[in-house]
């Protein structure tokens, strides 16, 4: 279980929500599954991040039904969130390239 690089949680959450609304548990699960179980998001980081992003207007929440018919708070991406996802994705790519350059050439 690798620790998340700081600042990447927002990017991952945005990316996961880009495919459709999810509740908090589902977001953590999806990240866990998509990373081939390499990443495990801690609840203590996930929920504050969700609330922060909602305050910034990137995501919005609504009470609805989860896939198993339970009441759940579903988060979805706003238009601002979508553009934020693009920005963060670019930033990440640039940073990743830079790090690889350093690792390869140093």
């Amino acid at each position, binding site marked *: 279980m690798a620790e998340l690089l700081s600042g990447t949680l927002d990017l991952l959450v945005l990316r996961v929500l880009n495919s459709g609304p999810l*509740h*908090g*548990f589902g977001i953590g*699960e999806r990240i866990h599954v998509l990373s081939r179980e390499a990443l495990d998001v*801690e*609840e*203590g980081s996930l*929920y*504050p*991040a*969700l*609330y*922060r992003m*909602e*305050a*910034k*207007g990137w995501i*919005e929440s609504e*009470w609805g039904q989860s896939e198993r018919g*339970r*009441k*759940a*708070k579903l988060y979805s991406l*706003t*238009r*601002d969130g979508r553009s934020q996802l693009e920005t963060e994705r670019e930033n990440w790519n640039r940073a990743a390239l830079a790090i690889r350059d350093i690792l390869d050439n140093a």
Partner: protein
Amino acid sequence: MSWIRRLRFRLRTVLRKGALDAEMAEELREHVELLTERYARDGMAPEEALLTARRRFGGADQISERCRDERGTRWMDGIGRAVRLAARALRKNPGFTATAVATVALCLGANLVIFAVADAVLFRPLPLADEARLVTLMNSYPLAGDVRATNSIANYYDRRGSIPAFSSVSIYKETYLTVGGADHPSRVDIALISPEFFSTLGVRLAKGRPFTEAEMIDGADGVAILTDGFWRGYFNADPNVIGRSFPSNGRATTVVGVLPAAFHFPSSRAQLYRPLAHGPYGLNPWMRHTANGGPMVARLAPGTTLADAQAQMDAFNALQLKDDPIAKIVTEGGYCTKVLPFRGDFIRAVRPILLLVECGALCLLLMGLVNLVNLLLIRANGRVREVAVRRALGAGRGHIILDSVVETFLIALGGGALGALLGYWGIRVLGSLGVDRLPLGELIGFNGRIAAASVAATVAAGLLLGLPVIGFNLGSRLAGGLQAESYGGTSGRRIGRARGVFVVAQVALSFVLLMCAGLLGMSLMRILEIPPGFTTDGIVAGKVSLPDQSYKDAKSQVEFVERLLPALRGIPGVELSAIKSGLPFTGIIPEGPFTAEGRAPRPGDAMLLHQHSAATSDYWRIMGIPLIEGRLLEDSDETRKDVVCLVDQTFARRYWPGASAVGCRLGIGLSFDKDHPITVVGVVGDVKQHELTEDSGTGSVYLPYSFLLHPVFSIVVRSSLPAAVVAPMMQKAVHQLDPLIVVADLRSMQAYVDESFVARRSPAILAGTFAAIALLLAAIGTFGVLGYAVSRRQREIGVRMALGAQPAQIQRRFLLAGLRLVAAGVAFGFLGAWAASRAMQGVLFGIHPMNGVALATTAVILVAIAVPACLLPARRAANVDPSTVLRAE
């Protein structure tokens, strides 16, 4: 609209804090359940799964706390806490809170009331297009004593289109007529106008069309343009009103247009408009200087200044004098036509006094603020230790600032709300003082602008009051505050001095306000002492306008009057009745030139206009106007072949100085006509015509009614019963003679006279109110500062007493300290009053700005208020019990 979403989110987090917290708890609980299910699916036993899930999840409380932080409501919670804290502190000290809130409320209320008046009269734009380009044209014959003469209809036709500086020129004349049939006649104010009147003002009709040139001719003028109000009231807002007809003065009149609801012509209460129709004389040069027209309003052409317009107007008049048959006479009269800013000219009479009262209100506001800052600082000083402890325990500067501001804001809010109520009420009271009869006064009201002003003032007051307290709280040294020194020591010499300055400033300001109020009040009293030249006791008067349809000729008018007078005398309580055209204090009186037989006119004399009016024989007896020599007019004079008249003393002195006027002869107009002489049979006392302050003027001529027929006149009776009883009976008596006639403005003569000094009385009352509030504030301020000084120095007083000081000595010490401040305040106030009274010289009447009585009275009143305010704390100081004080702490 992402900011809207963000704002909604923020608002929700503040307003629905409880619900959100519950949602969050539920969300987290769900999460734990899902986690448990997953572990169970992975093959754990149910209990183990739950335990593992809980362990993994960690402290739900910490997570919620962090989420709450992320929600960004910490600072909002902080404000909520500060509000609760401040509210508790304010509740704990009701005396202070009440004083502070009342101060804000009084000052704000007073300012709102005055602002409402000043805004309506001086500032708010009229609903006319580009009001700044509207000008008034006014003929003036200054050397003949007639500065503000009216324009003639000939002037209108001459100037229209001839002066490039004006893009549009119009003329109007205010009058009234009777509307409706015999069953429901009512008198309405109207204005007679030229066709381009509305386009000059920049007003588009809501319906219909303006008047045409053809409708300006007598006989073709049976058309009307209605105001929105009249359209709604009389025609029930009929959408097809154009073309409908209604009786006005007994004649069918067709509606051709309706004005928009927002239309308001400043000088006029006119409810409908008719063409200013005239006979077929239009451009006749002989008619240029007659008074048959009215005020002219013109619009400056684009790019033209007032000075350009005046220059072109002067050049035009110079050109016109060439074919003016009375060029010599008008030139000697100093004839010119003034081009004046429309609104400025309209409000010229009330502008200085309004600005003065506005200054007074601002003064009061300043005093209130100074007083409050003073009280707040005293309070802050008393809490130095509390603040110091809180800062020592880690309260940030932000917290201290927040707490100070929240408290002053609560005070400002409370005071602001109360003040707005006071203002609302005050504006309504102003109406009963007759302020709505000021020019543009009907626009005064508690409207959106006033509401906005009160909100702005409340916020500004909250901030302004908070600043000194913040400064004080942040400026005080932490260590110093924590030491016990703060009680009983000599804390803050600088602050003590600042408080002294506050007291001096308050006393000085209230001195100035009181002095100004005194001067205004004394002016008013001087005015009220002026004899109007007649008595008002038991006199009731009203205005009558004979419908032109049924009273076309002289005979019918005279007949009506002959039936009217006995009918009025038949009313119980009525002793005498008369009719009079141009009754004093009821409005405009006609003026015209007269020529005395055998007397060579002096330069300018020919243009000299004299008031001429008609009256029936009992008029002078009813009004108590004294007969100086000769005899009064009698009923038989109405039918005599040779016309006789009365003149007043001013007239007699002017033309026959040192000789008897009785038997002398006059001609009407610019020359004496041997074939139609008017013989003076008596001289009566002078009478004030418009207001008590007017000078004696040029003199008046009184003619028998039958010789100066006019369908508009006043009826006057002397009765032993009150006006409220007699007035309806007069109305009824007239109605019985002719159901189409309405008697308007039926009221006591005293009421007419009272109305004439509304513009002086209301400012005096307002200034008096301000001065009273100011005195109260000064007393509170002085008392507060001295009382605080005493309570702060109790220990010192105790020590002094323990060492042998007598209570009387202590009392004297504190009393003297207070009186020294008061004396300084009076001295500065004296200087301020000198400046202020000089500035208000123009609005004073018959009184020197530095009137000794006013000054002395002001000083005495101020000292009478200030001495108890100093004495009470000094007494308390003398009553300090050393053993109690020294044992405390």
